[in-house]
């Protein structure tokens, strides 16, 4: 399983700050976004703009992810 942290509206829509996604090491960030849509349809409105961070850096859809990675999903940032 891949542990995924959620923040801000993503967390509110899912109703939890952390979720688990069935995972095979080597699955990509793009695959994660698909899995999120399927398992948490409440996230669907946000998915086109959802950002994924792996090990504290923004990750492209092509990046391969291992279950030992630190992974987070969140909407575009709005700090400052």
């Amino acid at each position, binding site marked *: 399983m891949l542990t995924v942290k959620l923040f*801000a*509206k993503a967390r509110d829509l899912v109703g939890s700050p952390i979720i688990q996604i069935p995972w095979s090491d080597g699955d990509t960030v793009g695959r994660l976004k698909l899995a999120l849509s399927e398992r948490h349809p409440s996230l669907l409105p946000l998915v086109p703009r959802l950002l994924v961070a792996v090990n504290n850096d*923004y990750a492209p859809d092509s990046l391969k992810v291992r279950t030992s990675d*630190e992974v987070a999903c*969140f909407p*575009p*940032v*709005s*700090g*400052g």
Partner: protein
Amino acid sequence: MILLTQDAIDYHALTESVRSPNSGAVVLFLGTVREMTGGRRTVALDYEGYPEMAQAKLAELETAARERWPIDRVGIVHRLGHLELGEISVAVAVSCPHRQQAFEAGKFLIDELKVSVPIWKKENWDDGSTEWVHPSGELPPPV
């Protein structure tokens, strides 16, 4: 100094921390909670962050700024939690030998912070509703 904090930002201490005789110019930027946005009235903002990544991104921003300008000292503090009208959400202080450099570096740091550092704000409107602010952003480009 790079800091995320739940406490009120002491921008005076932050500014003092970047002053030095090597620099002729200090620029401080404060972001504060503004009442009116597009005709709607804000009563408060809630800021949430992803602390580990935010710290990492802020450190990257400092490095990127130092590659562009002859920065002497820099300090960035972002507040998290519940902020009332007029309170300070972010403070960026930078010192450089000359003022043009300090203005450019300070503007760069706050502009980039707003597109790349994982912090989010939630509006508390005066009608009692709340709303996450999520710009229709793309993946931030690497700095």
